[in-house]
């Protein structure tokens, strides 16, 4: 701490409460986790929390796929089915994917920029502990009279206002808590990156994971308040007699969709940009070749983030927006393909003429690039407004966003987890089991989601508990794939626990092609790192 005090007096002020002993470890017992301000502890808690939510949200998906295994209603009734689709979406988006990336940010950003901790450690603790409260509140609605939210994760008014179950108020409060948590997390990321970089680490020397998170954090700060405004207007409509979203009182249900998607479209990039960053570290590491086009990667990420603010109405091509509006949003959406294409081409060029090996992180990263691109292709198709009149709200859309979220966001998280597990635990994970996890996930995921393109094009709407017989065969294939994918993730839990409890000791830099400050410290990473800032040349 003393060196830090000399060099960075302002940082030391923030940390004045921290013990001044040099080699102190974590506190003992439960209070370590409740009161911790350590970025590694908080990162770990975020990651475990997100994995727990991933399993819970996944179990809801299993209920959905079990009901859709065959035509007819056999397992659940439509009202419960709707609660399952809604909660699956909400929990996966806000509970699994976003906290997982915040967990990775907490663990890795200080290690990557050579900072001793996040810039605002106590706020960091608070942003984490808001999440369990928010999700307890959200999940408790399933046991309330009238059931939980049943209006889809996009909660369009007036289905989510006038026609909603009473538990909608709990849902609104839960969203507020999640939003506060995300905004604080984002402020922390920005403060850390802009203020705590090691001497010599200029912005254009930062690892891409840090860059993509910096941009993601700005997106979060821009759009989470919009979501908060959206649910607050719902609250006013439900309890205080306003009519923001009711035509009968002079409002407009379509206003809801504009506000929601102004949040919602940047939100999908919030869920994918950090994965872009992680993959941009992993592919060069296992290609043993520097990332191709670092500068263009940074500019492409920034362009995607900018464009994400001006394309929201492509989710609303059939609500009856005027022709000029349709054209604008179609063109703007098509434009996103350009910077996204640049990223994919850069990854492929990084692999070109490398010296490739396929450890588990690389398998997930390569699958990420290929399958995310397939999701990008269907996204390009959806951008063509007249064709979207056929795709909109069918299983084609479900296939599309699961291709960008499962092998996109989720595979990005798995790749990151395997890549940095040796640094976190000090042990190598079991490579054979890791590869098995990858292949089972890869097969299960494609079996679950690829046939959804087919049923969607054949005319099956989304969010229905029962369907015509012509969709039966592919739905059964989808369900079998989904069960396989779901069961495989329990296997991942086993791999991680095995890695924490033991295994081959990991060296400081377990991957010979890896680059970055995080590999300059021992494995497992000591409780306090970079108390003296490293020198970056």
């Amino acid at each position, binding site marked *: 701490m003393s060196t830090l005090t000399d060099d960075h007096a302002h940082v030391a002020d923030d940390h004045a409460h921290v013990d001044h002993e040099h080699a102190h470890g974590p506190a003992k017992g439960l209070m370590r986790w409740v009161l911790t301000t350590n970025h590694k502890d908080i990162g770990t808690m975020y990651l475990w929390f997100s994995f727990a939510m991933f399993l819970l949200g996944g179990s809801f998906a299993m209920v959905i796929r079990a009901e859709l295994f065959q035509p007819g209603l056999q397992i659940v009734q439509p009202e419960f089915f709707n609660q399952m689709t809604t909660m699956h979406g909400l929990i996966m988006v806000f509970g699994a994917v976003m906290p997982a990336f915040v967990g990775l940010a907490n663990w890795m950003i200080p290690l990557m920029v050579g900072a001793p901790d996040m810039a605002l450690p106590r706020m960091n603790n608070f942003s984490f502990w808001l999440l369990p409260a928010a999700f307890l509140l959200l999940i408790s609605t399933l046991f309330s009279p009238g059931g939980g939210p049943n209006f889809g994760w996009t909660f369009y008014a007036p289905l989510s206002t006038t026609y909603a179950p009473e538990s909608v108020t709990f849902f609104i409060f839960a969203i507020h808590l999640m939003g506060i948590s995300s905004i604080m997390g984002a402020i922390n990321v920005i403060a850390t990156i802009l203020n705590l970089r090691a001497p010599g680490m200029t912005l254009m020397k930062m690892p891409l994971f840090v860059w993509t998170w910096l941009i993601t954090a700005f997106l979060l700060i821009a759009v989470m308040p919009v979501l908060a405004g959206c649910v607050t207007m719902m609250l006013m409509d439900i309890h205080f007699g306003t009519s923001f979203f009711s035509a009968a009182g002079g409002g407009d249900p379509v206003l809801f969709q504009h506000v929601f998607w102004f949040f919602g479209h940047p939100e999908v990039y919030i869920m994918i940009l950090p994965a872009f960053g992680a993959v941009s570290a992993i592919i060069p590491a296992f290609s043993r070749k520097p990332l191709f086009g670092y500068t263009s990667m940074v500019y492409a990420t920034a362009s995607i983030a900018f464009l994400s603010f001006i394309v929201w109405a492509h989710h609303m091509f*059939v609500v009856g927006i005027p022709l000029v509006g349709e054209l604008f949003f179609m063109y703007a959406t098509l434009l996103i393909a350009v910077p996204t294409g640049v990223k994919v081409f850069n990854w492929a060029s990084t692999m070109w003429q490398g010296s490739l090996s396929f450890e588990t992180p690389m398998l997930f990263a390569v699958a990420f690039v290929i399958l995310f691109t397939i999701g990008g292709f269907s996204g390009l198709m959806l951008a*063509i407004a007249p064709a979207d*009149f*056929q795709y909109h709200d069918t299983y084609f859309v479900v296939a599309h966003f699961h291709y960008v979220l499962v092998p996109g966001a989720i595979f990005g998280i798995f790749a990151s987890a395997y890549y940095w597990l040796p640094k976190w635990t000090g042990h190598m994970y079991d490579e054979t089991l890791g590869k098995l996890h990858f292949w089972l996930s890869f097969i299960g995921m494609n079996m679950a989601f690829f046939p959804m393109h087919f049923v969607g094009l054949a005319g099956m709407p989304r969010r229905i508990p029962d369907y015509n017989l012509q969709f039966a*065969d592919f739905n059964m294939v989808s369900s*079998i794939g989904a069960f396989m994918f779901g069961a495989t993730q329990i296997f991942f839990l086993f791999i991680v626990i095995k890695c924490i409890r033991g295994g081959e000791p990991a060296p400081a830099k377990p991957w010979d092609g890896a680059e970055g400050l995080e590999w300059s410290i021992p494995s497992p990473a000591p409780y306090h790192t970079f108390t003296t800032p490293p020198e970056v040349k």
Partner: protein
Amino acid sequence: MMRHPQVWVGLVLWSIFSQAQAAWTVNMAPGATEVSNKVFDLHMTIFWICVAIGIVVFGAMFWSMIVHRRSTGQVAAKFHESTTVEILWTIVPFLILVAMAIPATKTLIEIYDSTESDVDIQVTGYQWKWHYKYLGQDVEFFSNMATPAEQIHNQATKGEHYLLEVDQPLVLPVGAKVRFLVTAADVIHSWWVPAFAVKRDAIPGFVNEAWTRVEKPGLYRGQCTELCGKDHGFMPIVVEVKSKADYDTWLAERKAEAGKLKELTSKEWTLEELVARGDKVYHTTCVACHQAEGQGLPPMFPALKGSKIATGPKEGHLNIVFHGKPGTSMAAFGKQLSEVDIAAVVTYERNAWGNNKGDMVTPKDVLALKQAESK
């Protein structure tokens, strides 16, 4: 690796379903209108563009993965940037997108031109059925799903048009430009017939326009595509396209029926007749929420069996059916059902499931309420 299990599982499933109609449809159908064919062409064009890009990019990646492996002794090259290729792979995709946007724009402009229609139909989404009104023709009716509950609950064999069949289809003349004015009475619905490439959200308080010109007579099926609550999956659309002559005959018949319905209001009804008619009305209109035995799904959908309203004064009962209950899913059926049907269903509810009130609400009572309202 990924193909084999799919094929294997596919073969097993094929054998399971071989007695049923095995439908492994993988693509959109071109449809039955000029616009739907153009949309189909756009869909195929963008699809093949994606396939071509995919072959190039994935081809390069797989080449690297096979040839540039460390296990084959490959030494990594050092290059890591090239402004030329970066510019190239920014501009080329941009030009491809411009080429794609041009036909898409043309088709979109055509889709948005709903002027000079021959027939105008107001389509209204209700939880969970569609209402069709032929503007200027004095013909209107509801279209409910006709699939029996036994099929849904696996107590009877499912038919070919399971969940895609209705009691009264929308009828259109072939070759005429039909304009749809799409709206909703409660939540947002979406009216979609894939064969016409028409999908428009039905939004309460607003009217959206869409149009079609169907070239072949026949039956066309679709579904609601915006989550609208519990029975979102059970509000299909069926459109019957008839020749001009058949359409005119049908329209004349419907007008005559509307006249007959008015006569029914003035007829003297007995309790038994009203209960019998009310039974049918209840099981098409009310059963989704209040359930077959009147037990409801509390607390969202209250029970009618033994309820205060259904066993209380008949004026109060009629009033809630007629006006609905604001702030809940209970709609105002005064605008949805005929006088006879409202009288019948109220009478039925007062005399079914042990609610043996023995009294009746007549069509004339309903008419009186209606006239009092309009004053």
